[in-house]
């Protein structure tokens, strides 16, 4: 029984990281119909900034995290203006190529500035301690991840269901032309939600750095992982991404516990099964 709970707890915390990083991707891909392979770059920018702030500038963790997230959102704003506005009109293939190009530039920049080795983020002492859950112990940072993941879910829910911005965003996702015609400033909505997605990726990237270590090649290393979550969850569906991330997190963790040597195969076979049965993902609408 404790094995079962152990897998559950590890799987959920792993899934939460996947969720936080991928949820921004599902928003942008669902909203803007962009195949965005550059999404991991924002987690990298956030992580690298947090590394630089904590290790080289001596900024404390609690200040560094919001600063790094804000910095990433600003970079995302600029990139959105410079590159993505045009990308929206591209064909699927050109989107793939353009976003890979942007990914390359991000990697090259981080590589140039900070090198190709791991960029550790100094976390507070208390994060590395273990706490007992009765049936097993667990590092605090994993618990933090679970809690913050839930906070993000609730915050996103409130943002989308209870605010004007949320209503406009949902309208734009459902039908951009109609939203435009109704006088919603979709250009602004796009820019804001894009940078929101990037900020979430940065936040997830920083919190998850203990499990998915930050280094220059991060966006390529985990690109497939994040895309899997979006595809399985369904583009544009936040609830779908949540289900997919937690589900895949638990399945992946269980597979690694029980049949480690076939762990990766298992993960991809599950994904193929889901997509073969539900080509639009669990909760996808498009």
């Amino acid at each position, binding site marked *: 029984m404790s094995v079962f709970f152990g897998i559950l707890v590890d799987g959920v915390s792993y899934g939460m990281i996947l969720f936080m990083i991928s949820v921004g991707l599902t928003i942008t891909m669902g909203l803007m119909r962009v195949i965005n392979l550059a999404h991991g770059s924002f987690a990298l920018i956030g992580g690298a900034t947090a590394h630089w702030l904590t290790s080289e500038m001596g900024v404390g963790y609690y200040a560094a995290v919001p600063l790094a997230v804000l910095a990433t959102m600003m970079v995302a704003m600029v990139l959105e203006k410079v590159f993505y506005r045009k990308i929206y009109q591209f064909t699927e293939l050109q989107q793939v190529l353009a976003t890979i190009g942007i990914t390359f530039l991000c990697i090259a920049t981080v590589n140039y500035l900070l090198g190709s080795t791991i960029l*550790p983020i100094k976390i507070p002492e208390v994060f590395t301690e273990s706490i007992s859950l009765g049936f097993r112990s*667990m590092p605090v940072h994993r618990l933090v991840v679970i809690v913050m993941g839930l906070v993000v879910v609730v915050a996103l829910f409130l943002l989308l269901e209870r605010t004007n911005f949320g209503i406009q965003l949902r309208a734009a996702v459902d039908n951009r032309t109609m939203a435009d015609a109704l006088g919603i400033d979709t250009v602004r909505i796009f820019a804001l939600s894009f940078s929101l997605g990037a900020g979430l990726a940065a936040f997830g990237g920083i919190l998850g750095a203990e*499990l998915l*270590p930050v280094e220059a090649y991060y966006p390529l290393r985990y690109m497939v992982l994040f895309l899997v979550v979006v595809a399985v969850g369904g583009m544009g569906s936040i609830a779908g991404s949540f289900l997919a991330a937690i589900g895949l997190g638990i399945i992946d963790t269980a597979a690694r516990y029980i049949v480690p040597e076939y762990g990766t195969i298992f993960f991809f076979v599950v994904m193929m099964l889901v997509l073969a049965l539900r080509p639009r993902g669990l909760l996808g609408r498009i």
Partner: protein
Amino acid sequence: MKKLFAALSAASAIGLASAGPALADHTVKVGIIAPFSGPFAIWGKQFQEAIEVYVAQNGESAGGHRIEFVYKDSGGPNPSGTKALAQELVISDGVDYLGGFVFTPNALAVAPLIDEAQIPTVIFNAATSIIVEKSDYFVRTSFSLWQVSVPMAEWAYAQGIRTAAISVTDYGPGNDAEIAFKTAFEALGGTVVDTIKMPLATTDFAPFMQRIKDQSPDAVFGFLPAGPPSFAYIKAYNENGLREAGIEFLGTGEMDETTLEAIGDAAIGITTAYHYSGAHPSEMNQAFTDKIDEMFPGSVTNLASVGAYDGAHILYQMIGAVGSERTEAVDVVRGLAWESPRGPVSIDPVTRHITQNVYIRRVARDENGRLVNEEFDVIEAVPDLGLVEN
């Protein structure tokens, strides 16, 4: 005649270290193939820095031959690209010797080529035992996983460890390490309670830790590639309470000097068996690390550095003795013994693999507060046990 010439120039090489460039009348080129781009770029950097330090310490020539290094980027594991690079180096750059090689498939890909073109090739890293058997022109200055895993098993048994779990990354070197440790440990009477092969792409190790903890062995032997996997593994080892439960971690190259600072305090006290520590206490190593620090501030020395440094030494010996008359060059270094920054070493005359001490080390902070692998026990003159025992 050739032998006489070789002997003569070998003799002159010894007296040459100081005479240096004055005698240089003819240039011998050495091609170094290593990753200088991509996620493994650190390897190329470590190689090049060590070679440049060796050149700075020993001059640019040997035996009247000026030595020039030509660097080529192989990227990651990429046998077809590596083979093309080797062809290019030999045909168009006119190199007489090759060196470098981080990945096993890359080294294996050039074996037929160096046989045909008779190019002595010094492997600075690629550690699968069989490589040196694939061509008589290979000499290796790194290590093999058998070479370090067996001493680890023997040391552990001597410390009273009787049960162990094995967790290795599921690829060539990981499998070598697993078989080597298991064979040696069971031969002594130890019991391996579980063998876990972890996927190469994994960086979340909590499930494996949980599985190991559930079986409460005396120790867990691990092998992981340096970089993100080692980083995340050691963190997971600490945080999942294996250390508290008294399950000792036994490893080999996980505490690599280039990732040690990133792992931080979590690394303190971790025990590994390896052939080189950046903190090896010897004058030679001090001179080596000081020079690295002087020429490349902020750089540290690790297994890649010492592999390349000793590789340069081998190349200097061969070139000093025979210059570009390279066909018999490998014979020059068979049985060659010298002092390396890692301690006393020699080239096995039969296998052409390096025989060296294996040190048992523990991570600690030195007087400057830097994390280092502190050697506290040694198993002397270990050959490549993979070649001996298979």
